[in-house]
């Protein structure tokens, strides 16, 4: 088994794989964190590193197809009575390479003189609807990471000058005081985080107005010390895709590079987060179908989040969704190991 895993890993890497990976990681670190050149974004670094997993998916498809052409299926059929050794070795080799690339991504952060981002917050514009003078409704576009707050700039100019501190309540009856001349912070409750919608009411007759264009959602931005955990989440996202690739190529007996494309397409759909406004708008058939497909899949886009706005999705994936996603991956791996009867 050891030789199988090593052999497949070596084929995956090819002659220049390690060298290219090293160069790519160091370039990514420079682009993301260099004091002069970098854009000081952990999400950006995460985006570059997650490309490694995408490349491995396609490379895996290519190597599987090359092995098929080189007569491996016959040898497997003759030598492995149960048929699980080769698929398991392929899965393990790819998983280990993925993990290796992700771990290697930590190296430049400890060795190069970089300006690493610390814990911070990110702000996002929020859609605000004024249902009436008594209710402000804020749409947060899906689940929100815990620790998020709503920041409101409130106009007190129509109220009584004597009242410069007033309570604002949500529909559950929770209240926080707003002070004139200060941003109003509303920490989101677990229910509000999950629903992605907040409904607030100012005191009746107080004359408070919210400046709608200035309503913002404040999300905690993870520091670089959380990179390992974020990469672990990426691994959880990509491993089931890898298992699915093996299942399609082995059990489905389709061209392995086509299987890699299919899995890439599925991963893209899973990682995609449609803006909620899409559901309201009059959509084309294509977009509606995409939306339907997306809704049928586990909501694990938070695991694969990267890029400059990555903090908006980090930590929004629920445990049942992760469990379902991993279960699908396990099922796919079992299928990949299942040998089909000779025709």
């Amino acid at each position, binding site marked *: 088994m050891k030789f199988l895993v090593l052999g497949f890993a070596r084929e995956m890497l090819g002659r220049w794989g390690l060298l290219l990976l090293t160069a790519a990681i160091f370039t990514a670190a420079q*682009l*993301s964190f260099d004091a002069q050149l970098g*854009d000081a974004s952990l999400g950006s670094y995460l985006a570059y590193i997650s490309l490694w997993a995408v490349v491995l998916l396609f490379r895996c498809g290519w190597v599987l197809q090359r092995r098929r052409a080189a007569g491996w299926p016959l040898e497997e059929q003759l030598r492995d009575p149960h048929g699980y050794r080769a698929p398991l070795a392929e899965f393990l080799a790819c998983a280990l390479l993925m993990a290796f690339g992700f771990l290697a991504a930590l190296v430049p952060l400890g060795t190069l003189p970089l300006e690493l981002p610390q814990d911070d917050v990110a702000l996002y514009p929020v859609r605000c609807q004024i249902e009436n003078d008594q209710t402000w409704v804020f749409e947060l576009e899906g689940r929100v990471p815990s620790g998020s707050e709503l920041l409101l700039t409130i106009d007190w100019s129509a109220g009584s000058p004597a009242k410069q501190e007033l309570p604002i309540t949500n529909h559950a009856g929770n209240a926080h005081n707003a002070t004139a001349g200060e941003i109003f912070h509303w920490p989101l409750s677990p229910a509000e985080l999950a629903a992605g919608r907040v409904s607030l009411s100012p005191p009746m007759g107080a004359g408070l107005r919210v*400046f709608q264009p200035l309503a*913002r959602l404040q999300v905690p931005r993870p520091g670089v010390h959380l990179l390992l955990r974020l990469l672990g989440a990426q691994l959880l996202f990509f491993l089931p895709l890898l298992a699915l690739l093996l299942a399609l190529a082995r059990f489905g007996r389709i061209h392995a590079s*086509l299987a890699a494309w299919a899995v890439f397409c599925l991963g893209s759909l899973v*990682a995609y987060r449609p803006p909620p406004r899409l559901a309201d708008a009059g959509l084309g058939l294509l977009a509606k179908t995409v939306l339907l497909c997306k809704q049928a899949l586990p909501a694990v886009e938070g695991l694969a989040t990267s890029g400059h706005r990555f903090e908006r999705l980090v930590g929004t994936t629920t445990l049942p969704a992760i469990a379902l996603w991993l279960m699908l991956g396990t099922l796919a791996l079992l299928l990949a190991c299942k040998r089909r009867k000779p025709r």
Partner: protein
Amino acid sequence: MNAIKPHIFTLVVAIWVGFVSLCLLLQTFTPLGSEATNSARSWWTARRFQQADAEQDLLGLRDFGAAYLSRTGDGTLLDFAIYQIGFSASGPSMFRHPSDALDWALIGSEAGDSYLSVLPAPWPTLQTQAHILVERAFPLSHNPAHLANGLEALSQWMASGGGPNQASSLTSAGYREFLATALDDRPTYLLLRLSGESALESHESDR
């Protein structure tokens, strides 16, 4: 039948790949890894912004700042561009013709207006806009709408206490003073406040 099954399966998968690839091509949604491309493009946009700054290409500053905002959600470059275009370029130190100076002030102010609702931290932009409209545009145009809009922007900025990151007790106290002022005297209060700020800023820069 057994021999046909794999071909049907290939066909199904090929249709799936074709459908999703079409959606990706039509940008109905984005492919895995597109964030890396976006990051690389935003990095390049930031470099071009720096180049535009070095070359004093003011419209380039605005455009690259806006492109950077849409790619990254980071508005600091656009904020800087608005200040450069609306305030610095329209200032006396630029020795421009007054009509040029007014044009630049209005371009800066319009940029602030159009991006206010999408900037992640819009509060400093409000303050910049107040300075642009009251101290640059109004003296050149004598248009009362410029003055009114500038003071409105300032009152919004004061209502936020300067924003969450630049929160200042002075600004908060100032807003409470503003609320305590009679309605008719509020514009005058804001004007005084703005000129006080400018005096303080120039004193700081002299030091």
